[in-house]
């Protein structure tokens, strides 16, 4: 695992849910919400959870303005680099959400940075290898970085089965062959953990923190 972990991907791929679970499981010091694209279901809703877990949440929102859709970035987003502590960065969706990485270009040490592409193969725009490659290229061009690994986050929310994860893995294996990238992590809903067999990548157990229990 690298010190700086950027999570990128298609919107609705489960980036934010993965990012919070990943940050908690690796004991990261910072979770940085750089999503200025999405108006709902953002990491910034998780202040209390982060505080309880000594995870410092840096949000792109103005204080107390959960309903803001202004593309505002807190100046604290640079703190993880100055303090040089393990951090997870939750990017907004697609090329528009990746562009923000350019402002960190001078601070990024390639040896210490991962750009992880989060994929849910049940999303229309990332259902086949060629579509995924197309989106990865747009994201890399927009953000000025190279993706370093894949996250198999294939899911149908609470209806997900082990078979669904394997379905995603098969598509991502084709992507591995074509791009030379590896499946580094697999996001698995915690309830599904007892039912799963082997999977490529380190398993990150997922709790759906952003989704209300009644939803």
């Amino acid at each position, binding site marked *: 695992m690298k010190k700086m972990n950027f999570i990128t991907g298609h*919107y*609705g791929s489960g980036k934010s849910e993965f990012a919070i679970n990943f940050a908690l499981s690796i004991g990261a010091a910072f979770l940085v919400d750089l999503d200025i694209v*999405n*108006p*709902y*279901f953002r990491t910034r809703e998780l202040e209390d959870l982060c505080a309880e877990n000594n995870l410092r949440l840096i949000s792109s929102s103005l204080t107390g303005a*959960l*309903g*803001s*859709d202004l593309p505002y970035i807190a100046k604290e987003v640079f703190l993880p680099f100055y303090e040089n502590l393990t951090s997870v960065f939750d990017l907004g969706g697609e090329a528009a959400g990746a562009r923000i990485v350019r402002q960190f270009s001078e601070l990024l040490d390639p040896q210490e940075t991962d750009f992880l592409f989060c994929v*849910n193969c*049940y*999303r*229309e725009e990332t*259902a086949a290898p060629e579509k995924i490659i197309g989106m990865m290229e747009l994201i890399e061009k927009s953000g000025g970085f190279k993706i370093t690994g894949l996250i198999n986050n294939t*899911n*149908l*929310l609470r*209806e997900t089965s082990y078979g669904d994860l394997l379905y995603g893995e098969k598509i991502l294996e084709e992507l591995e062959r074509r791009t030379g990238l590896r499946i580094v992590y697999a996001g698995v809903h915690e309830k599904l953990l007892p039912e799963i067999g082997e999977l490529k990548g380190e398993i990150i157990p997922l709790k759906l923190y952003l*989704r*209300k*229990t*009644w*939803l």
Partner: protein
Amino acid sequence: MKKILMKGNEAIARAAILGGLDAFFGYPITPQNEIPEYLSKHLPKMGKVFVQAESETAAINMVYGAAAAGARTMTTSSSPGIALMQEGISYLCGSELPCVLVNVMRGGPGLGGIQPSQADYYQITRGGGNGDYRVLSFAPENLQETVDLMKEAFDIADFYRNPVMIAVDGLIGQMMETVDLHREKPKRELPDKDWAACGSGKKRLVNSLYLDPAELERHNFRLFEKYRMMEENEQRYELVKMEEAEFAIVAYGTMARIARSALELLEEAGVKTGLIKPISLWPFPKKAFSELPASLKGLLVAELSLGQMLDDVKIANEGRLPIAFFGRTGGMLPEPEEIAEAVLKMKAEASQ
């Protein structure tokens, strides 16, 4: 067909395409922007029309033009944007033009906020335009219901030659859920659009101006005969766990969804509670209230607004049962516990 995972706004856009959308006109506003984003990507590739208008007022009048020419057309917006369209909606009804309107509601009044709300109930069911007119409106609760209604909406609009609105709150627009896009939709015999001004053949006039008051009155009577048919045939609702229920929650859209969890909590607490879920907002499903069990002792109306649907429940209830109200607004969503508590309070008051 395998299920896929979609965001509400994407699902609305895809379902509109499956419903036969020919031409989209709209102006951006949060929290519905993924609809035009999706359509701008897909419609041009299919040889169909996507126009980002210069304002909501322009968009609704472009819809008027496309509908008058016989196209299947749609606009989407959120609360304050729909407010700007009210004049155009009145004209569409007056000229009997079919179209589909989508309102992904956010908090108000005024600019309000971008978080989910149902505070446009009056705007949707009473309208803000002039004259005696009605807009058929449906308020789905989840993405599958949204997709099914979207696909059907164009047929219903063509059938009655009237605008049909799909009203959801921002949460439904923004949330992810599994959907099957290819479920069968109910079949309707649709009349030919022999009234459409499509530029050739016999002269056809699409118009809402009547200089002779007697003729305008006849026009209104005819519209009302159509609205009466809608009231007869298009009331939609769902009754959940009503058998031997002591209390019933009346809620639609996201609030119905939260209420379903409240029903479970109330069952655990030993209070038999059902749910009356309106799906059509206008016509309001009055029929549901004539099917309620004799065991009922009261109704709790729950809204993401401060007592708008409450009026329609009072009308439909005809003074039979006591009615209590629970509402959150401004973009705040309640937890199921809050609704359950409101029912328990009602029960305590009823036994005093």
